[in-house]
């Protein structure tokens, strides 16, 4: 089960309807929110990918359930252009080295749960940015925490919030999952 903000039923519809309906549904979402599109049109997977690429949204992945294809898309948020403020920064490569030395490294993945489901670092804990404030208590203030998102924007915000709340050793991982070459896994029911 993948958490989404909205579900669009496009089952039984032929091209170009799934894309047209997706476009309309996307207009009703806030930046950063995730849409699930249920379709039976076999061409829709390729179409969704191409559509997301040209319209600037993020295609997360597709899960097949019988004859239904469930596509997951995240609305563009402009996070790439934000100036990063958190000072303690670590590169993807440096994080990999830390992980090799210490298997219990705490990695906090602050992307939406649907993004996490399709590709994440095996040892990373999923804590979407929107839930950070309520769930901060799950974390230890003294330990080193490496915060990661897709491009370093949301993790920057999360790192600032954690530091402000008294966490002492918080690092923002840049650029994040968009360029991650280390071990990763999927946790969607195949």
């Amino acid at each position: 089960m993948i958490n989404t903000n909205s579900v669009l039923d496009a089952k039984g519809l032929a091209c170009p309807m799934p894309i047209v309906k997706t476009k309309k549904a996307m207009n009703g979402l806030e930046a950063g929110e995730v849409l699930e599109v249920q379709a039976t049109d076999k061409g829709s997977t390729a179409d969704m990918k191409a559509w997301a690429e040209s319209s600037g949204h993020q295609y997360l992945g597709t899960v097949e359930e019988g004859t239904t294809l469930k596509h997951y898309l995240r609305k563009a948020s402009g996070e790439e252009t934000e100036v990063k403020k958190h000072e303690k920064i670590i590169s993807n490569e440096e994080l990999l080295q830390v992980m090799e030395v210490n298997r219990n490294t705490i990695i906090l993945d602050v992307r939406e749960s649907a993004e996490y489901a399709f590709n994440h670092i095996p040892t990373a804990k999923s804590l979407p940015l929107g839930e950070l404030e309520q769930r901060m208590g799950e974390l230890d203030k003294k330990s080193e925490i490496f915060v990661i998102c897709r491009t370093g924007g949301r993790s920057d915000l999360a790192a600032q919030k954690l530091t402000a709340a008294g966490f002492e050793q918080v690092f923002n991982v840049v650029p994040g999952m968009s360029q991650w070459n280390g071990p990763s896994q999927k946790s969607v029911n195949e």
Partner: protein
Amino acid sequence: MTNKVAIIASNGGLFDAYKVFNIATAAAATDQEVAIFFTFEGLNLIHKEANGQLPLPEGKEHFAEGFKKANVPSIPELVTMAQEMDVKFIGCQMTMDVLGMEKEAFVDSIEVGGAVTFLEFAKDADVTLTF
């Protein structure tokens, strides 16, 4: 990239209509500015009465069942959708004069113009298609 798609629709069959409106709505859904110039038989595609019963090519009548089975939207539905997505329809003035047709015979809010109207739109389009 200018994000513009210019389409000329000059044939009036059902297959032609799907080619035109599928590409147009898909492009509009991808945030492209789309204009279609309807000329000669292409005007059937936006004719209020004709566009609900466009002919299949001769010998291909059996495709009607396939269209139904695949739940393909009807041409009038695609026209409405294209309009909702701000696809611009330009009816060819010259053809309308030749055939003695009035603007009222066509779906609402079409623009009527000549070849230059279309060329003006198409001059900086990335994609120009003719059907």
